[in-house]
């Protein structure tokens, strides 16, 4: 008898708690297995850290996490279809691979729910569905800013571009070239350097670049083993001594891979919207909490910040629509939304629903036996140039 009473009491209090806290259902689509699992973990943790540091009071955020498995598009569509019809989520979030965001646009359109892209960087994706809001980046952000800066700040006249031969690489080439040549520079050679899967021997590509004697050698390869091989080859061929600066977007110096690259990375100059050594207060709070939760050796990178800011956008939409999250109102609240992110001030462009943010020019230096990214210059309020200049397929 006593026990039933206690149980009943527990149920009653749980029920009243549930009444007080409105549930918000967030469908998360990320590659939780395979090569993308590491990226999914970064984004997952970024979202978790946002909620921990900035709880959404009065609402209970429930996650429905689904594995998209591969960049094939089909699985992503099926998973999103089930999240919308079976789990009845209020908002969709995630997308690491661009092909998945492209393939699922029709389902997102039919589902009529806010969809926050936390990584997928192909520029025109946000134009495929009016429900997409992007809190990560477009490949054009870093590439275009680097092209301008290389000509203006680094005083480069000629450049050679080496890129991994897949869409992000081609986007990087196009954006860098466009900006560099518009600022008075000249791209004298374009070298496709193998695909994104296996790490090729970079020596012949780099020798070809060295023979052209450019002022800067702009390289885009996937983070990790590829970028380690790039800095090693750059050192081995003595290109620095030959007066050729190695530059690239921040993918090359992704924070959680940086320490593994060793001394060869010193002097590498990159352009990106985030690195873990940014000194603003938001970032310091973020890093401290991250290291406390996941270990001192663990570092967030730009993926994690995409997740953090994406969750911030969702939290803003929840509060603005009082938890209803009807797509029209949610999108309205996010158009022109400003936020103090660990990457500095950000804004969602009211016209394109894409992010506007600062890009940081940084140099890798050694400090206390640890590689460290030193910010040299800041390019403020960078928009996605692909859409600003209407370069197809952007419109």
């Amino acid at each position: 008898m006593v026990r039933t009473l206690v149980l009943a009491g527990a149920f009653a209090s749980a029920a009243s708690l549930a009444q007080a806290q409105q549930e918000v259902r967030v469908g998360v689509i990320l590659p939780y297995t395979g090569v993308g699992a590491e990226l999914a973990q970064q984004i997952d943790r970024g979202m978790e850290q946002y909620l921990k540091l900035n709880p959404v009071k009065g609402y209970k955020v429930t996650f429905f996490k689904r594995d998209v498995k591969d960049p094939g598009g089909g699985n992503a569509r099926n998973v999103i279809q089930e999240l919308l019809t079976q789990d009845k989520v209020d908002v969709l979030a995630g997308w690491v691979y661009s092909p998945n965001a492209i393939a699922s646009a029709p389902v997102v359109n039919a589902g009529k729910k806010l969809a926050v892209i936390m990584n997928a960087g192909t520029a025109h994706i946000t134009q495929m569905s009016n429900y997409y809001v992007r809190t990560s980046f477009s490949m054009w952000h870093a590439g275009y800013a680097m092209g301008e800066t290389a000509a203006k700040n680094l005083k480069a006249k000629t450049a050679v571009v080496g890129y991994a031969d897949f869409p992000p690489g081609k986007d990087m080439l196009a954006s860098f070239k466009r900006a560099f040549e518009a600022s008075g520079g000249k791209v004298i050679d374009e070298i496709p350097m193998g695909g994104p899967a296996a790490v090729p021997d970079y020596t012949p590509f780099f020798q070809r670049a060295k023979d052209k004697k450019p002022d800067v050698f702009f390289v885009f390869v996937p983070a990790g083993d590829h970028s380690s091989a790039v800095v090693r080859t750059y050192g081995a061929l003595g290109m620095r001594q030959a007066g050729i600066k190695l530059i690239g977007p921040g993918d090359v110096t992704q924070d959680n891979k940086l320490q593994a690259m060793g001394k060869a990375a010193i002097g590498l100059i990159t352009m990106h919207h985030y690195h873990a050594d940014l000194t603003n207060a938001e970032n310091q709070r973020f890093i401290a909490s991250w290291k406390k939760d996941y270990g001192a050796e663990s570092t967030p990178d730009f993926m994690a910040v995409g997740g953090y800011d994406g969750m911030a956008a969702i939290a803003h939409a929840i509060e603005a629509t009082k938890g209803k999250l009807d797509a029209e109102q949610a999108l309205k609240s996010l158009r022109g939304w400003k936020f103090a992110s660990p990457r500095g001030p950000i804004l969602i462009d009211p016209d394109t629903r894409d992010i506007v943010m600062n890009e940081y020019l940084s140099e890798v230096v050694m400090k206390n036996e640890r590689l460290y990214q030193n910010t040299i210059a800041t390019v403020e309020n960078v928009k996605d140039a692909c859409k600003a200049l209407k370069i197809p397929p952007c419109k």
Partner: protein
Amino acid sequence: MSAPAYDLGRHPAALALVNRHRLRVWEPLPWILALAFYFAFPNHLGFGTDLLVTILFALSLDLALGYAGIVTLGHAAFFGAGAYTVGMLAHHGIWNEPISGLLMGASVAALIGFASGLILLRTTGLTLLMLTLCTMALLEEAANMGEKYTGGFDGLPNLPIPPLFGLFEFNPLYPRVQYLYVLGVLFLCFIFVRTLVYSPFGRSLTGIRENVLRMHAVGAPVNWRLVTCYTISAAIAGIAGGLWAQANAYVNLSTLSLDRAATVLIILVLGGYGRLYGAFIGAVVYMALSHFLAQVYPTAWQLGLGLMLVLIALFARNGVIGLWDMLRNRLMAKGATMRATKSGPS
């Protein structure tokens, strides 16, 4: 003392030979289950459509690998050929009617199957395996490089597929039409394959698989039979690919990937190859397990799938169907010995 006259026509082996193509009682079951799935899981029809496409793809591989013994690791070449034919015709505004589009996809895949088969099928074993893999890799790279026409890595999005028969629209959120459409095509293809494998042509394929020398000796045109079989198999794989492109309104490099080719091979071996229904059982077991496990454990579902594959590889070399056969044989043998011991000491 005259031996009892033995009617050869009543010999179990002869009966098995005469009756093997007859419809068995349980054979409508898969189709009933497929229709039941439609009503029972209205929110999982995207997955269901994918499952049916995979069954058809596995069925096409069964024809080549299971019946004719053509060991291939590049069957996604034909899946992709069908998908890209449908996708490119629709994307560039040339042709997008679904059913005729499928036939075009099948023709292109058959053409590639025939052309590559003429050369590849002169080899066997590992050489054949590598060459089929190469064919697929070449097509994949061609699709990657021909970005202007194929969309490259990002694929061709938002394919404009008009309503089926001008009436039934493909809804991306509730893919009911896609499911029934794929089910219908699968049914027709299955009837065709079933008829084919029980025909003399099908038996000659099994003969080639079991003993090429003997088939040569009896004068069968071994090479032509293999090429014909490979071409038909390619055409069906092309239909599967075309269906995939239409149901997803999308096509990209994944249709031509080694991942897809390897998965379908695993599915067929898992179900049991050369068994007609192995494709069904393998696809259902593999896809359902990975789909629903991934729903519950998004990060660790592969562990469960891997464990199952290890167990199948260790204890059921002939796949799930083989496991079932073994159990049935054991039970029957046990029943027979029990009857024998009961009637023994009388």
